[in-house]
């Protein structure tokens, strides 16, 4: 069983299947597509140049470097969380302002927490693999790969 230690930014505990990418995510362009908007704000990633093309982010422990792109990102994440379609938890190499804003807005305005842990480890995407069963603790920043 592998263990990683990061910095907890949004608290809460969750256990789920990892979805891992080493490519930054543009959550505005990836998620704000008609197929999602008219499907109760589903969080299917529609960026055809990206390795997560057509993957549903819902309920996954999403592991990625950081977000890029539009300042709408915080609001996109916020509304996805509101509709209950968001990832279960997020593990990033760098917590950027847009991703972090979205999760903080959800915490303050909706009282909904999606744990966020920052692990600035260049080996992160070798240590956690897609479909690993991962337990995250946003209070302590601890991550355990249990299956």
């Amino acid at each position, binding site marked *: 069983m592998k263990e990683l230690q990061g910095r907890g*930014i949004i608290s809460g505990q969750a256990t789920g299947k990892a979805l891992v990418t080493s490519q*930054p995510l543009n959550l505005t*362009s990836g998620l*704000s597509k*008609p197929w999602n*908007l008219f499907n109760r*704000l589903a969080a299917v990633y529609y960026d055809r140049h990206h390795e997560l093309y057509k993957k549903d982010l819902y309920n996954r422990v999403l592991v990625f*470097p*950081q*977000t*890029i*792109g*539009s*300042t*709408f*990102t*915080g*609001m996109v994440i*916020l*509304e996805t969380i*509101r509709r209950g379609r968001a990832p279960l938890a997020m593990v990033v190499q*760098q*917590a*950027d*302002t*847009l991703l*972090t*804003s*979205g999760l*903080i*807005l959800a*915490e*303050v*305005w*909706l009282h909904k927490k999606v744990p966020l842990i920052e692990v600035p480890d260049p080996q992160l995407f070798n240590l956690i693999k897609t479909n690993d069963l991962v337990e995250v603790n946003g209070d302590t920043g601890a991550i355990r790969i249990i299956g």
Partner: protein
Amino acid sequence: MNLTAEEKGILQGAQGKGMQLALSTLVRYGEAFAADRMVEIHSAHLAGSFGAFIYRTYYDAIRLMVKEGLKVKVPATLNPRPLEKIKFLDRIMISQQGFLEASLAKLGVTPNYSCVCYDRENIPPQGAMLAWAESSAVQFANSVLGARTNRNSVTIDLCSAVTGKTPRFGYLLDQNRRGQVLVKVKAKKIDFPALGFLLGKKVVNRVPVLEHLECTRDDLKNMGAAMAASGAVALFHIEGVTPEAPTMKDIFDREPDEIITITEEELASLRSFEKSKPEMVVFGCPHLTMSEVKTLGEFYRGKQVKLPTYFCMIPRVRQELGGTDLLRDLEAAGVRVTAQCPLAAWTIRALGRKTILTNSGKLYYYLHKSEYGATEDCLKFSGVSS
């Protein structure tokens, strides 16, 4: 974070629920990035100008603030309207546009309706602390004006506007504004949006410093917007051009972490218009300034467009064009002059839309069914020669 007595009071509800939630959000945001305290801001810029039906929490926040009679504490400009002539089907997507515009007006937001707020309505001095959203505007404020803002999200921008504060972290601090990556551009003629598009992908979130090159402010606007879309770059420097980098020694504290070289071939590789057949031409993402309208407009005088051609510009610029020969000539040529946001407009009107050719790196990045062309390619497709 060290909070003032007044800030602590606001967190306890002394100024109502809207202020309490807004400041709580900003304090949590600051804590996540190890901010030591809040700072008063010079101005805000709000990106949330599209009344799309999905943004429920944003509208809840606005409704609460309006109900409690809150007003923005600093000048707060606003992003463009998504569309100007709203047709029936559009109303489904942007059903809240009327509510949004009226509510933001009640909060005292400046109705400039442009991402290019820094052309007239919102020009901060060097060193000013800001809370801006809109990645292209953040770029310009940090890089070209030497003001200081983080990449703030929609809704965070609103929280800052009504409290007049932002947490002190990130690009507000000297040490985070230093050069990290050196960029050499080996090209005789520089295609600025293409350069921005490529740099965004390579640099991602670091601070690039470009060797000296000849450019206009509009070039920097267009390059910065593309860089902020294809990456997460909030600040760039150009040796001898931007205010914080008079020389390389002034902006680098140590050897660059990386040296990136961009060649003429790489810049040209972005020109993709031969891949599919563009059927309309769009200029203006970010919005065109008067100077750009005049420069581009010259090519259209006395000519006729071959393809639908749009000039998307700052609303004030369109107003100033009213009654001029230039406007008359543009309209006679068949150019459609608009102040809408091309990215929003052609995302909303995606069904059965024609392929767009644009010289905007940002628009090309975001819009599906779009191709990139340098300005001369766009002029040529449009039906006029450069």
